[in-house]
């Protein structure tokens, strides 16, 4: 394949990565924005979503689309519930102290991960995609006869990957409408801006925190259900999404939702493109180091405000 079509293929792969990443990172960003805590167990909620998707689709059987559709609803709800309960049980009792929350969520990380290892087992298990047609893509080229449309060999995408991109966009728009147009969204934003004043106005801050923690985990789980037909479910799969989501939230600016979306797009795309052309480990080394440097020299991120 020539450079042009190759780049287009890499960008499409990047767009799929970015779509999953934007959902995971939004979950982390909302939790940080409203509750001011870092949830280290976020990647495990992602993993839990993928594992639940496997259980649901295996239990239902029949056409893969049925199991997938059910998993798309059940897994985020169940994971959200688990997160809300653990918030009530653990985080609330330590008063959302930033340092102790990190230690507590590291504990949750190991509990969720190892419980999955004991029940789900160490194997990677696939979930069948609901539909998976291969769509060949055209490429335009100038030659003697003017602009020509050709169909390069290997330049294609599956219908499922296109669906992932559209699904992520839909969820993002729905989330934006939810936060800006509904009463619950208003309450969340009020809590984010000033939890003390919100409490004085009768907002049940404790319940809002549990809901936000659940919502954040549900978004991660949703991303995982979408990714599991492409990447198999495995009990250690949470580590990469966690680091990537961290990266996105930091670069976007801690607590800034528009920044998170922009950063997810940038990082997902560049990850897709870089890993096609370079060694993935080297790309990861450079990316991780650069993110740490951004945090050192520009702690507010690209879109964040100067104060912490």
């Amino acid at each position, binding site marked *: 394949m020539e450079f042009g079509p190759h780049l287009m293929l890499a960008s499409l792969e990047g767009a799929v990565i970015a779509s999953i990443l934007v959902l995971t990172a939004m979950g982390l960003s909302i939790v940080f924005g409203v509750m001011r805590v870092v949830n280290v167990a976020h990647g495990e909620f992602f993993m839990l979503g993928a594992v639940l998707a496997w259980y649901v689709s295996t239990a239902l059987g029949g056409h893969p689309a049925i199991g997938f559709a059910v998993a798309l609803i059940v897994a985020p709800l169940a994971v959200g519930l688990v997160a809300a309960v653990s918030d009530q049980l653990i985080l609330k009792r330590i008063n959302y102290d*930033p340092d102790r929350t990190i230690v507590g969520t590291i504990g949750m990380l190991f509990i969720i991960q190892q419980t999955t290892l004991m029940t789900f087992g160490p194997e990677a298990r696939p979930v069948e995609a609901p539909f998976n047609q291969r769509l060949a893509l055209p490429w335009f080229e100038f030659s003697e006869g003017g602009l020509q449309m050709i169909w390069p060999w290997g330049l294609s995408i599956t219908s499922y990957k296109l669906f992932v991109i559209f699904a992520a966009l839909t969820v993002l728009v729905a989330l934006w409408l939810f936060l800006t147009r509904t009463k619950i969204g208003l309450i969340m934003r009020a809590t984010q801006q000033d939890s003390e004043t919100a409490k004085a106005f009768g907002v049940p801050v404790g319940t809002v925190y549990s809901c936000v923690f659940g919502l954040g985990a549900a978004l991660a789980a949703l991303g995982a259900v979408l990714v599991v037909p492409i990447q198999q479910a495995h009990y250690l799969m949470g580590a990469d999404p966690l680091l990537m989501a961290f990266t996105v939230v930091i670069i976007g600016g801690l607590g800034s939702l528009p920044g998170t979306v922009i950063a997810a797009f940038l990082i997902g795309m560049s990850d897709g493109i870089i890993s096609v052309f370079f060694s993935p480990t080297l790309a990861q080394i450079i990316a991780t180091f650069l993110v740490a440097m951004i945090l050192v020299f520009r702690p507010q991120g690209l879109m964040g405000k100067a104060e912490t």
Partner: protein
Amino acid sequence: MTVARKINALHFGILLFLLICFFTLPAYHVGALSRIMVLAIYAIGLNILFGYTGLLSLGHAMFFAAGMYGLGLSIKFLGVSVVLAFGIGILSAAVLSALVGLLALRTAGVSFMIVTLMFAQTVYLVVLYFGEFTRGDEGFVLQQAERMLAGFDVTTEAGRYFVAFGAFSICLIGFSALVQSSFGKRLVAIRENEERARMLGYDVWRYKLLAVIISGTVSGAAGALYALLFGYVGATFASVQYSILPLLWVLLGGAGTTIGPLIGVAFMFYLIDASSAYTSAYMLIAGLALVVLTMFAPRGIAGILRTKVSPWLP
């Protein structure tokens, strides 16, 4: 007895106890204790920064790994003597911690934790990337002939125990002297109220940098010692898990206490040892311990002793 006498008596009592353990306990526990003592040095390293200066690093595995690979690679590829290799290991940890400190100390709080985590992840990936030399996850073994410490064979059970014991004694006594010195008191002042320490005229940034360097160097020494005594160097020791474990030990034993690290490591070691007989998912125990500790006993075992029994505990 004055407080200083009580503290010295406690530390010498612990060392004497460890010495008696060697002659009375069966071989399995003697082996376990040498491992516990080396890991306790690692925990002491983290405790200087986390327990006394109030800076929580989530990336100490990079210093442990720097010491470990500094020693391992220089023996394997440069063929230097063990003593020199040990020096190289400690030096690489010191240099790395100075660099990390200079950069990471520009941030504070949650950002400091994430920055250290990401630097450690970078180091881990670098170890994997140069798999040609480091052998990546698989790691490499130091041959028995390469592990003679100044004519002292550390491959035997007794040699290993006494080298670990000697190193641990030096670290415990040095650590105890450090935290009781005026320097240690200044670190605690920074932990308790950084603004106030600055207002009193202390150069807070310099003390924090020194704390990072001392902490990283001690952790690196533990890494080098681990590689020397147990003859194995691998990328697992650079992974996130090995940054979390010392935090767990320090929290369990008691952050900001001199005896906390040893108690924490020993407790956790035997807890995991006992539970691994029943399940392969032994890290579940670590997770539960972290959650329970942070909820009910954020000050750890020695912290409880200090509030309930003996307020003079250093």
